[in-house]
């Protein structure tokens, strides 16, 4: 259960939003809407503890996230504009190394299975820089599938995806929610997912 109360964000001299409250429970997802520059990304970065809020508090299962530190970071997965995918490494290496940096191990079979699921069969050993933009995003989807986290914070996850990949991602998120996970997403288009709570800033 993630709750935030009275969040505000100041960028430079501008106050992007103030007094923002939100709550996401198991099996729920939150759609953060807003115009360009309204502070969607800033909100997600605050929720991910990348930047501190100017005011307000974020709680995870009723404990302040600042006190939880590692435990919160283990339970949460944040994907920003950039994919955190290394161009020089192969999709397989990317997946296993990312898991190791998180302090977990990922066996090759599971990683391979995830890559195949997202249509990257035959590309596992090709450096990512030889993949197309859409295929690079699919590597990220595979990472979502293998990383065990109960809270997903995804910034514009549907950009640069073709119809098939959009279906795959929404399937993945639905699966995650059905298993009691939580998700916070931003997007300026309408979401191909049912029953979301909407937060407009």
């Amino acid at each position: 259960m993630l709750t935030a109360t009275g969040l505000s964000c100041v960028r430079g001299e501008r106050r992007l939003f103030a007094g923002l409250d939100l709550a996401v429970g198991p099996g729920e997802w939150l759609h953060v809407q807003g115009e360009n520059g309204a502070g969607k990304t800033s909100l997600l970065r605050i929720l991910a503890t990348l930047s501190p809020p100017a005011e307000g508090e974020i709680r995870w299962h009723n404990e302040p996230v600042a006190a939880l530190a590692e435990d919160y970071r283990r339970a949460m997965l944040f994907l920003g504009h950039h994919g955190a995918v290394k161009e020089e490494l192969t999709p397989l290496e990317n997946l296993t190394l990312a898991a190791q940096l998180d302090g977990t191990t990922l066996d090759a079979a599971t990683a391979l299975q995830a890559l195949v699921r997202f249509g990257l069969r035959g590309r596992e050993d090709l450096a990512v820089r030889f993949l197309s933009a859409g295929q690079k995003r699919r590597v990220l989807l595979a990472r979502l599938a293998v990383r065990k986290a109960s809270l997903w914070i995804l910034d514009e996850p549907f950009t640069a995806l073709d119809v098939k990949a959009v279906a795959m991602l929404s399937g993945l998120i639905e699966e995650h929610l059905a298993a009691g996970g939580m998700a916070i997403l931003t997007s300026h288009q309408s979401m191909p997912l049912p029953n979301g709570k909407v937060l407009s800033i």
Partner: protein
Amino acid sequence: MHSVIAIIRRDLLLAMRRKSEVLTALFFFIIVVSLFPLGIGPESALLRKIAPGVIWVSALLATMLGLARLFAPDHADGTLEQMVLSPTPLGLLVAGKIVAHWITTGLPLVLLAPVLGIQFDLDRGALGILVLALLLGTPLLSLIGAIGAALTLGVRGGGVLLSLLVLPLYVPALIFGAGAVESHVSGLGAGGHLSLLAALLALAVFFAPWATTAALRIALE
């Protein structure tokens, strides 16, 4: 510990895939050192005297060359954010990256230095001290440099600014490092210099990852 080894392995793997960057710094080092005799003249007495200083200054510059790219690629592709959000403490991951940086830039310099020292007619004892001093000094350069690299991350004119910030902080390493060989040659013994260098290294090992981590968090805010 597991993830520290993972990040060292990852950075070494990346360096292997982008060999040109590592090799450029290395050849830069070789060329700069080799240019000095051409500018100064071939008298071996003079060359012996300037050798430690020349090799050390070139090592500083060669280290600077790769520093700007220590965190920049990770920053650009979002890996740095994932490192900050990793359950592993950021300080450990940063320490791992610094170790990897040293293995790809510092260690080759240490291994090459005796070969270049021969160009300057240094005897065997002096070469040994030179290698020892570089072995203690180059990790220090990577550690201090990492602070500068983190501070200038994503900043306008970062590369030039980085050298402005970092080079003055390299002064003690330069003095004790080059001084070790000199005092050995003049018969005073290099022990004092080397132990001071080791003391600086110990201080930097504690202090630099902390400062680098703080600077990285600020850069990402």
